[in-house]
């Protein structure tokens, strides 16, 4: 009896084992089981994305490969000089090696986020009383110099361009307890938007990495080049950060890391108002129309961005400003043409050929297409009888309302309004043929020929696009409008640049109607068109952009000029509506300022890089860029800054933790994502195990059965 009972319970037990094992049979790769077990046994170390670096941060390598500790920032000092629309910023940051252990020489990696348009051109390292000035070198060579200095125990520093908006500096051989000051200088262009100039210095510490909470790195746009900092450079500090350093990191967020900031503003035009949005400042006017601006408090906690805005005084005429700089026997100048704040409605209008090219791909569905349609309809009704127009839509196919722009007549207008009303978003994105169709219209220099491209898509095959624009643009102008979060704004801006028009970015879908209406109104009245710089009196004149865009309300034009000699009076020629316009500028009285050569060089580099799009060989571009970048001390795609102290600081022979590590990863922008690789665990062992388990189970069943019979 007892035996029978025992036997049935054994059978039951085996059955339940089988039932439990069954899901394993079906789902040998059940991730559900795999994950918790693995994270428990090894502890997934969270990593931090480079995007999370919101201020200059110094990271120290440690003995454990791929692990870093953030160094305490002692002090940050910022000096900004604004000339026209060029802002030159000097950031001085002081760090220490917090270690007190003798022989604990560290290599730090300094990561600094920069505005998109910024160019780093100076690097200074201060160790004690000595100042080491950075030298601009070809990228590979700079790297070599840095490595050699590092091996020899010298203090060295290297600035490389990781992405357009991230710079990293490696600082080698920082002795225990030693202070090191890194000073970088960069130049950027001030933003102009809705009638006011705006300068921002990022100081806010965004969401910081909190020990114990995994921060998942999100994949960025698949540009390939360094979407993320290499895994070994991104710190996963939580597990190795000693408690003492948590305090110092805590103080970065709090009152410990204070920033002092001062600014000189030379706007180059009369200013109505200067304001700092988040920090109380003292603004002392200069006699020449500039301002000396400093924080009211000596130093402020780094908890919010510094933002300064200034508004030009009202005017009804375009005003021009000239600033010059003498450097190495050449004269560099910046010509700034500011549109009047109020447009002159009484000026005679030029007849226009208006071509709307609108994206009706599926992604435009919803509010995007609806708002674009209603502002398109509104723009059509504002056309006059001297104008001509056309509407082209593109998705998988390109549909053009008329073959060429048609004069504004009742029938055409009726047809157009009906056509616009019937636009619906569906299908893919074929932009190139649409633009090609738009550029088929006849050229006519007596008319304003405006092509307005509205899209929310990525611009693909940009080479072809830019080539098309270079060869076929003629008298026409292309204006691009990017809608939503997806447009690749760099390429859209470039398209507008090649098209000699402007780029409008509309991030918020709800603003589409207002912003488009604003743009269409603006395009009705170009303040000045056909602008040229009269070449008489200049020698060796080279200016960028080479083709000057038209002047529209709210869009100042900046010309970077280099020449070996200049005339006393420079002449700007153009047209207001149909009337000729000219402005003479006194070059002799131009205010002399620094930084203009750098601005010119940067514009030239940008123009050279554009040539790569239009068929110039890469080697030619590289040579051209190298010449300019080396002469003007600029970090570019092909050049890096390196600073080496001549006297060794670290006793050689003692190894620096940073050296034991592969140095390879530092110089690469390229990296491969692990996620793209196939899984490399097989179900072999689990299948074997399960099979054996089942056979054993069967054997036991059999045994039990036999015993019972």
């Amino acid at each position, binding site marked *: 009896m007892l035996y029978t009972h025992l036997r049935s319970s054994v*059978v039951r037990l085996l059955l339940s084992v*089988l039932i439990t094992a069954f899901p394993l*049979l079906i789902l*040998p*790769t*059940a*991730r559900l*089981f*795999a*994950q918790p*077990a*693995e994270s428990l046994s*090894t502890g*997934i*170390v969270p*990593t931090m994305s480079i995007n999370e670096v919101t201020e200059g941060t110094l990271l120290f390598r440690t003995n454990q*490969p*791929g692990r870093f500790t953030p160094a305490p920032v002692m002090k940050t000092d910022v000096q900004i000089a604004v000339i026209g629309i060029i802002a030159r910023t000097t950031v001085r940051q002081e760090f220490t090696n917090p270690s007190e252990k003798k022989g604990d020489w560290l290599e730090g990696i300094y990561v600094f986020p920069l505005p998109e348009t910024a160019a780093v051109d100076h690097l200074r390292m201060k160790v004690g009383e000595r100042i080491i000035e950075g030298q601009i070198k070809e990228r590979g060579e700079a790297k070599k110099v840095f490595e050699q200095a590092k091996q020899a125990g010298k203090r060295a520093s290297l600035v490389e361009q990781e992405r357009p908006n991230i710079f990293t500096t490696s600082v080698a051989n920082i002795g225990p307890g030693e202070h090191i000051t890194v000073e970088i200088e960069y130049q950027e262009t001030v933003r102009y938007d809705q009638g006011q100039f705006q300068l921002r210095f990022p100081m806010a510490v965004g969401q910081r990495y909190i020990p114990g909470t995994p921060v*998942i790195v999100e994949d960025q746009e698949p540009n390939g080049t360094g979407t*993320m900092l*290499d*895994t*070994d450079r991104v710190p996963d500090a939580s597990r190795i950060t000693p408690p003492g350093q948590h305090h110092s990191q805590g103080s970065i967020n709090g009152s410990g890391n204070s920033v002092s900031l001062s600014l000189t503003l030379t706007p180059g035009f009369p200013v109505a108002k200067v304001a700092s949005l988040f920090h109380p400042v003292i603004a002392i006017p200069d006699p020449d129309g500039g301002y000396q601006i400093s924080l009211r408090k000596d130093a402020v906690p780094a908890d919010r961005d510094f933002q300064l805005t200034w508004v030009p005084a009202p005017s009804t005429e375009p005003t021009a400003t000239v600033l010059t700089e003498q450097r190495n026997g050449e004269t560099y100048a910046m010509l700034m043409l500011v549109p009047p704040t109020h447009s002159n409605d009484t000026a005679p209008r030029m007849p226009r050929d208006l071509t709307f090219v609108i994206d009706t791909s599926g992604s435009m569905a919803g509010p995007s297409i609806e708002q674009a349609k209603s502002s398109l309809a509104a723009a059509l009704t504002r056309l006059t009888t001297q104008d001509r127009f056309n509407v082209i839509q593109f998705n998988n196919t390109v549909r053009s309302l008329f073959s060429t722009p048609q004069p504004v007549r009742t029938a055409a207008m009726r047809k157009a309004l009906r056509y616009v009303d019937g636009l619906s978003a569906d299908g893919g994105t074929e932009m190139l043929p649409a633009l090609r169709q738009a550029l088929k219209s006849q050229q006519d220099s007596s008319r304003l020929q405006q092509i307005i491209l509205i899209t929310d898509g990525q611009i693909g095959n940009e080479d072809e696009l830019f080539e098309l624009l270079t060869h076929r643009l003629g008298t026409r102008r292309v204006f691009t409008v990017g809608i939503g979060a997806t447009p690749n704004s760099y390429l859209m801006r470039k398209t507008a640049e090649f098209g000699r028009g402007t780029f409008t970015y509309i991030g918020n879908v709800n603003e589409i109607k207002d912003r488009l209406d604003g743009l269409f109104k603006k395009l009705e009245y170009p303040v000045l068109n056909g602008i040229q710089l009269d070449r008489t009196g200049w020698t060796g004149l080279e200016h960028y952009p080479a083709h000057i865009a038209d002047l529209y309300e709210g869009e100042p034009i900046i010309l970077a000029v280099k020449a070996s000699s200049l005339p006393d009076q420079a002449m700007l020629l153009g047209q207001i509506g149909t009337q000729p316009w000219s402005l003479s500028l006194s070059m002799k009285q131009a205010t002399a300022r620094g930084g203009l050569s750098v601005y010119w060089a940067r514009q030239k580099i940008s123009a050279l890089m554009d040539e790569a799009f239009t068929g110039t060989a890469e080697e030619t571009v590289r040579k051209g860029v190298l010449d300019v970048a080396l002469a003007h001390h600029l970090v570019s795609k092909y050049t890096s800054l390196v600073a080496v102290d001549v006297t060794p600081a670290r006793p050689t022979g003692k190894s620096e933790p940073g050296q034991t*590590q*592969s140095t*390879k*990863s530092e*110089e*690469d922008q*390229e*990296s*491969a*994502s*692990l*996620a793209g*690789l*196939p*899984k*490399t*665990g*097989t*179900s*072999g*062992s*689990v*299948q*074997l*195990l*399960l*099979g054996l*388990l*089942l*056979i054993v*189970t*069967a*054997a036991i*069943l*059999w045994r*039990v*059965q036999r015993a019972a019979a």
Partner: protein
Amino acid sequence: MKGRQIKTRVVTILAYSLVLVGLAQACSGAWIYMKAQLAQVLLQRAWAGTLAGQQDVKPWPWADTWPIARLIVPRLGIDQIVLEGAYGRTLAFGPAHVESWSDAREGTVILTGHRDTHFAFLEHVQTSERIVLQSSNGLIRSYRVSDHRIVDSKSGRIPLDREHPALVLVTCYPFHTAIPGGPLRLVVTAEAEDIEVERKVRR
């Protein structure tokens, strides 16, 4: 009595089916290991053909991959033929070369393999371990392991370099877990030894 008979029969059928399913599972599990071993034998033959100058020699007629390199770890007695293209179907037969990154001659070479068959040896690889890679033109390059790292595959990246030769071996981590599919990867990096590059003279 009748109920008891039925019960006996049910248990017998159950036992038989258990044996069958168990055998099937065990065989299919064992097949993974056998395939891994067997394929390498066929691959060694194809490799000899490759070195003799034939292009893209297929190890068996229906193969959609071909040997591109030979991986040797002298201390561990590892000698494996590396296949082109890191896909699940090639990994069953040998370690695979991630083809998009380089042509296995210059720059960073990434190889991946199953943690429980071909790349099980990675568990025992030590820092400064010598790894030798012979490419299909007979060139032999020696590497030294410089770094071991455990990376989450969802976020991890392997730095690439087009100029300096380096070898990166990737496999799933941890070893010896029964259930595959975890997110962690072991990434072993080896740097090329500069001087020991030699060209084996082949006919």
